[in-house]
């Protein structure tokens, strides 16, 4: 196939896109996990006002398609005087969108936590932030691990949507390669293979960490 040799000649373009995808996914994963974790606190607080606000946020994220949300931040925020360039708008969309999903799956893991564990924590004098960080969070993270892995793969897939607001990620670079040299088959297949490698790596890493978690339990 001639197309693949052209893609190989211009592999630096694809690799820059791949690198950008990895950076975007890494920030998206870390940010959404962090905000999602913090969101579980109002979700589980039991105070009606907090619960309702956090639930509204989570439900809203679960109803919007990611593309619409990315457009909303990119085109909608300037109406409120907040100007973000396409890269930061894309990353912010990825973080805020998936924070809703992360919060929901961590909440589910938290509500399955045994009461005795938390009571034991109270008995040892833990309360507030210390209780959350030392007693609640570690088992919640471990038991939600497979679901967090699925969500990470979803983040990888959603990062491809950012091509529509011209973020130079993998799909965007594959598209520009195909429009410049007309190698549609080779360039998109190359992108699909790189996405596949990324997701398989995430899956096996999560599997490995999960085995470690099982041993500790």
């Amino acid at each position, binding site marked *: 196939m001639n*197309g693949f040799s052209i893609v190989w000649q211009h592999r630096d373009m694809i690799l820059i896109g791949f690198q950008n995808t990895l950076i975007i996914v890494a920030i998206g994963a870390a940010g959404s996990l962090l905000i999602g974790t913090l969101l579980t606190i109002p979700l589980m607080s039991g105070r009606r006002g907090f619960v309702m606000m956090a639930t509204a946020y989570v439900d*809203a994220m*679960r*109803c*919007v*398609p*990611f*593309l*619409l949300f990315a*457009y*909303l931040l990119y*085109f*909608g925020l300037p*109406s409120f005087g907040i100007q973000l360039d396409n890269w930061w708008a894309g990353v912010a969309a990825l973080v805020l969108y998936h924070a809703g999903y992360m919060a929901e799956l961590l909440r589910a893991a938290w509500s399955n936590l045994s009461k005795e564990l938390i009571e034991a924590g109270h008995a040892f004098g833990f309360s507030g932030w210390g209780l959350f960080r030392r007693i609640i969070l570690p088992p919640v993270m471990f038991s939600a691990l497979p679901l967090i892995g699925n969500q990470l*793969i979803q983040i*990888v*897939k*959603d*990062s*491809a*949507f950012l*091509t*529509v607001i011209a973020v130079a990620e*993998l*799909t965007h670079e*594959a*598209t520009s390669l*195909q429009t410049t040299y007309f190698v*549609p*088959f080779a360039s*998109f*297949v190359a*992108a*699909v293979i790189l*996405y*596949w490698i*990324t*997701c*398989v790596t995430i899956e096996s890493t999560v599997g490995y960490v999960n085995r470690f978690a099982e041993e500790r339990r």
Partner: protein
Amino acid sequence: MTSYDYYSIAYGALATVSLSLVSIVLGVPLGLGLALIRWSRLPVLNQLVIGYVSVIRTCPTVTLALLVFYALPVVGISLEPVPAGILTLTVSTAAFNTEIWRNALVNFPRDQYDAALTFGMRRGLRFRHIVLPHIIHTSLPALVNEMTLQVKATPAVAVIGIVEITRAAIRVGARTYEPLPPFVVALVLYSLIVFAFVTMQRTVERRYALAGAH
């Protein structure tokens, strides 16, 4: 926003709903077929299905849409945007449905199958009357969950020029220079569609529960 703007976004909703429905109607049985290939462990085909599911489940829908629309003409299959969009969405949802059906088949109680064998049921009858009702019941929540995800994946086909809710809202926003109102309309429409699917799932589950109680 004029009434024509509302109309154009609602028209986009029609495209979103019909694209989702067509891909679901095609993708659910296709997934079942592929799951049966894995269940029966047909040589070669089994490995092909494993590869297909692994690659497609990790492939972003946008990239898949671009691949189908721009790359298939290279191998002599040139598709209009709408068939290309339907093909993309079907191929992607079928991969997820394969895993859902396969999970139900793997967990199917062996004794029921043996009982059907004892009664001398033929293969087709065994599948239609014993296996299928059971796996439909166990897969339904996961299938509807996948359907709602499918609705949210449809904006991906906007990149190949199909005007669905998101693209229609973008157009209105670009013309009026006020992007927020059309986005809010789009958001409401998506929520209604997703809500319709979830309600359908609850209704069907309740019926099943009643049927099981008798």
